[in-house]
């Protein structure tokens, strides 16, 4: 490690930003190269918990999309409304799982090399997607109410 003071605090690092610090990027891949050192176990565990938190977020997106498509009654006048809302959530769940693994791999590599961890795009992607889906849901509901009368 370059300096232990530059490490993020691993205690309770559970969310998306838990194992992240600002600054430049690092190469992808989980295997260590020449000169890499095994990082402090607490940071490895914190990085793993961040990945698991993202995995649960991905599963929540998948089950929410599935529930919208399969369990909601059809919107009157908007027969494609359920798929419009549910399918993007399911796709996003798969994307979060894969990107979460790549992010874990990058962070682990940075920890091994004592470099700063690259900022994640996932918080921004999640915020934008959830906001967009809320807007689309409101539009579908309004459209359905208008077409019903």
């Amino acid at each position: 490690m370059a300096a232990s003071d530059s490490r993020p605090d691993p205690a309770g690092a559970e969310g998306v930003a838990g194992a992240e610090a600002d600054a430049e990027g690092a190469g992808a891949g989980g295997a260590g190269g020449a000169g890499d050192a095994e990082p402090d176990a607490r940071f490895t565990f914190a990085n793993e918990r961040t990945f698991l938190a993202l995995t649960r977020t991905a599963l929540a997106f998948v089950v929410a999309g599935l529930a919208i498509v399969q369990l909601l009654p059809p919107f009157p006048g908007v027969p494609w409304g359920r798929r419009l809302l549910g399918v993007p959530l399911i796709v996003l769940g798969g994307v979060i799982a894969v990107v979460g693994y790549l992010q874990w791999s990058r962070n682990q590599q940075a920890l091994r090399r004592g470099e700063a961890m690259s900022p994640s795009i996932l918080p921004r992607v999640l915020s934008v997607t959830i906001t967009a889906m809320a807007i689309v849901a409101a539009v579908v509901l309004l459209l359905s109410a208008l077409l019903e009368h």
Partner: protein
Amino acid sequence: MAPRGDLQDPPPGLARERTRLAWSRTVIAFAAVGGALLKTSIAAGAIVVVTAVVLWQLFRVFPAEADGGARPARLRLVAITVAGVSLVALAVAFLGPGA
């Protein structure tokens, strides 16, 4: 007061427990997705529930190393499994009984 050098790399302690609990929550989330799938597609739901059980057994048989070494193969397996579950969910969304 302990010398600063002793505090540089303390044992992981409760970090391992927190990680174990995080794995438990993740497996429960897997099982919940399987339960939701069972509602509409018994085969797809059963596959996901069995996958959750297999992941849990993998975690139990191969517990975290004492030194907290990284386990990329296990995490890669989880990521691929979630991506696969999302594909199954997509298939159910388009081909399931409510579609």
